[in-house]
């Protein structure tokens, strides 16, 4: 990883707008500015069209011979399939309300990162091929034809969008750039262009069930290790049920939480919570990935990866599915899953919390409940004992992840939980949270090392908001409900607000959770000493000595 400039230099180095018209500016591919391309074997294995080796920095991307026809046909097909696309191509008035809503634009000042212009890249092509005036007047009214530089430009900016939908919230017509980005990525995949950091996990999720391609036995062993760690901290070893038939609940969470710090602590949190509740549940090694890298590729790929959830719930005869903390996973579950792969298998029933008896009527068709809803309900019914004092050494804020915020509407449940398990919870400024939340800057498959500077730029709005509460309220912790956030926010915090740690919601839950028969906690889930505990003990010993 190249050395990053200091934050103030990063911002100072944002170039001003160029004098040239944007139609005349060609995309520039310098190392650090693009994601590595997907490998040919990966694409072949996944039966993606036109797999080939190519290099974004090279002049020739090795597009197939009939690339223009392929892409034009694919575009026309998408227009027939998605009303949203037709509409979003037609009705933008370029009012500019979206411009400074995009974290990529704020961080780079690249005009083509204004959502309106990102969409205009495709709209200019639409004008020429699908509108009367565009055919007649051409460039005068911003229409253009396809050429290889246009393809490069689309690739460049489709992978500088995290599909966070913040622009769509502010758009007076609800034009959703995420929709456009998804479709542009589909078009690029038609001519064999994809990125390694997305397609490799897609391959792994497809064939092993998790994005790193860990085989089932290793997966189980890792989870066992995490259970051992729980025991170290609490004296209780939580059970780790795998592939159990007839369990009431199938639990699915992003596999990143099994492998990567700090997600693993959130995962330990789940283990401890379920153990404490004596929940009748099971993990699955087959459907062990909640996150859906396919949704960064194409609708069909998302469907394909998502299909495993219902298939496994059916095989295991589970009554309903509980979903872990994850961002795009929940966009897919809320807005796509039932449509893709529903209706839910016949063995599944309306989700009812076995502990509180609450029916989750809002999930009556997908039969899939978010863990934050589940836990908030437990807390509301006083089913859990907490010692929030154990989280007193942190002053936490909460990062709303884009997809739960703008694709699901999950805003208050995590806050409800957070308020129950922490004594110090501070919100970031109001235009950067809840439905107006800023992306971590690396969602939708951009969480890759080679574009670290770009990620830090895109993370600028979030980073600044975090630093603001760090300086003003002494915030030293940020909770989130997204596995990608848990991977992307630590470097972001490290860069923009050093000293702030990042964790999932359920890590804090488990830290505060008083389990039946647990040993006195002297450390948190990260096995770091809890401040205050030892002094208390020594003070108590001194007291006894007197």
């Amino acid at each position, binding site marked *: 990883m190249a050395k990053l400039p200091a934050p103030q230099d990063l911002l100072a180095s944002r170039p001003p707008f160029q004098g040239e018209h944007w139609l005349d500016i060609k995309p520039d591919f310098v190392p650090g500015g693009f994601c590595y391309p997907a490998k040919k074997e990966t694409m072949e294995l996944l039966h993606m069209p036109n797999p080939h080796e190519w290099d974004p920095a090279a002049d020739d991307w090795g597009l197939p011979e009939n690339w223009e026809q392929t892409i034009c046909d694919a575009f026309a097909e998408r227009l027939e399939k998605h009303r949203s696309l037709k509409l979003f191509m037609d009705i933008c008035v370029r009012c500019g309300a979206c411009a400074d809503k995009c974290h990529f634009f704020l961080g780079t000042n690249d005009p083509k990162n204004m959502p309106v212009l990102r969409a205009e890249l495709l709209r200019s092509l639409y004008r020429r091929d699908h509108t009367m005036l565009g055919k007649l007047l051409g460039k005068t009214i911003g229409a253009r034809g396809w050429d290889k530089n246009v393809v490069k430009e689309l690739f460049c900016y489709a992978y500088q969008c995290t599909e966070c939908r913040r622009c769509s919230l502010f758009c007076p017509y609800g034009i959703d750039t995420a929709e456009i980005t998804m479709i542009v990525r589909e078009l690029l995949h038609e001519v064999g262009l994809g990125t390694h950091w997305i397609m490799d996990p897609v391959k792994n999720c497809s064939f092993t069930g998790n994005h790193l391609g860990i085989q089932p036995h290793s997966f189980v062993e890792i989870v066992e290790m995490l259970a051992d760690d729980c025991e170290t901290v609490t004296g209780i070893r939580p059970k780790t049920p795998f592939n159990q038939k007839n369990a009431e609940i199938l639990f699915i969470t992003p596999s990143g939480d099994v492998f990567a710090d700090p997600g693993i602590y959130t995962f330990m949190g789940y283990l401890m919570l379920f153990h404490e509740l004596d929940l009748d549940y099971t993990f699955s090694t087959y459907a062990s990935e909640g996150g859906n890298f396919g949704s960064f590729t194409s609708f069909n790929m998302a469907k394909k990866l998502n299909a495993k959830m219902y298939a496994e719930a059916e095989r295991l005869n589970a009554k309903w599915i509980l979903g872990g903390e994850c961002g795009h996973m929940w966009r897919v579950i809320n807005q796509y899953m039932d449509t893709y792969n529903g209706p839910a298998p016949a063995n599944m029933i309306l989700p009812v919390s076995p502990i509180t008896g609450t029916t989750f009527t809002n*999930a009556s068709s997908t039969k899939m409940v978010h863990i934050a809803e589940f836990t908030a309900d437990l807390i509301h019914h006083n089913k859990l004992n907490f010692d929030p004092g154990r989280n007193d050494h942190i002053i936490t804020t909460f990062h709303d992840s884009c997809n739960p915020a703008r694709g699901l509407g999950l805003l208050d449940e995590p806050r409800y939980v957070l308020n129950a398990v922490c004594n110090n919870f501070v919100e970031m400024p109001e235009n950067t949270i809840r439905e107006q939340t800023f992306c971590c800057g690396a969602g939708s498959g951009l969480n890759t090392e080679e574009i670290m500077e770009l990620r830090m730029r895109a993370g600028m709005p979030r980073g600044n908001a975090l630093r603001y509460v760090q300086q003003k309220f002494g915030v030293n912790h940020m909770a989130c409900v997204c596995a990608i956030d848990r991977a992307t926010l630590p470097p972001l915090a490290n860069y923009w607000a050093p000293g702030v740690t990042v964790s999932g919601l359920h890590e804090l839950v488990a830290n505060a959770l008083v389990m039946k028969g647990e040993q006195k906690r002297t450390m948190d889930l990260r096995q770091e000493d809890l401040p205050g505990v030892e002094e208390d003990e020594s003070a108590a010993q001194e007291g006894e000595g007197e």
Partner: protein
Amino acid sequence: MFLSLLLVLLIGAVAWAGSAVGFASLFGVALPYLALAVFIVGMVCRMAYWAKSPVPFCIPTTGGQEQSLDFIKQAKFDCPNTRIGVFVRMFLEIFLFRSLFRNTQADLVGNNGTGTVYYSSKWLWCFALVFHYCFLLVFLRHFRFFTEPVPFWTTCLETLDGVMQIGAPRFFMTGGILLAALLFLLGRRVFNEQLRYISLVNDYFPLWLLVGIVCTGVCLRYFDKAEIAMVKIFIMGITHFSPVSPDGITPLFFAHVTLVSALLLYFPFSKLAHMGGIFFSPTRNMANNSRRVRHINPWNPPKQYFTYAEYEDTYRDVMAEVGLPLEKEPDRAAE
């Protein structure tokens, strides 16, 4: 920008000169009929074109808390889960520009420029709303030319609009405000760097066209006055499909009519189609209830995925090693 200004001036000038030399019927009768027909047919076709594509997924942008647990308060209109909620959301969007009302402006602050603030910025919302409503009122006021007798509501509107009782004929505020709002919207495009960069001829042209319409309209009322009784007789001739001679009406009137016709002709083929489009927007007009009600995708492709059976076949031995329950034990599977 100047190109579109020139174009608008050209259209106005041609109509003005043309009707002065005896082609008034062309600009005053034939063109409006044609324009209105093109406008209606064009917009209907555009809406049918949108409707021909399905909405494969339920993709509302949730602008607040979803409906979930009893003790969590739902944002009923920003994140509706019922038809009524969606109706209210669409109503707020269309009549009050809810989304634009959220608008903020990002600015860098701090001594080294690394702090960001987001000011609430309601100017665009305000002027956009004012523009659309004044335009509507001005259009409704014109019903005094379309009806005999003039309906009561038109008279009421005029009384309210001219309540300041400035001059004779009385000054209608909507006309002035409309012009001011248009100039603001135009000014943004010229003076705001981001907007200047994204603005195309397609953005300036309708603005200039509207400015042209408003200016000619204002002139007809206050300066180069059209003879109102003759104008009404002429317009009633058109709406009753029995056009009368345009003789004696000032050419400026035909410039006004021609510019309006140009707007109608341009409407369905341009961004102005947002008038109909907003109703179709799937991120606004759908309920966030996709976990409760299954949304159907008409082109949903068949399921194709790596099945559990294939998975177990691939990993059976290692799964057995760690004691994972299997559908087929390794020795049996080999048989």
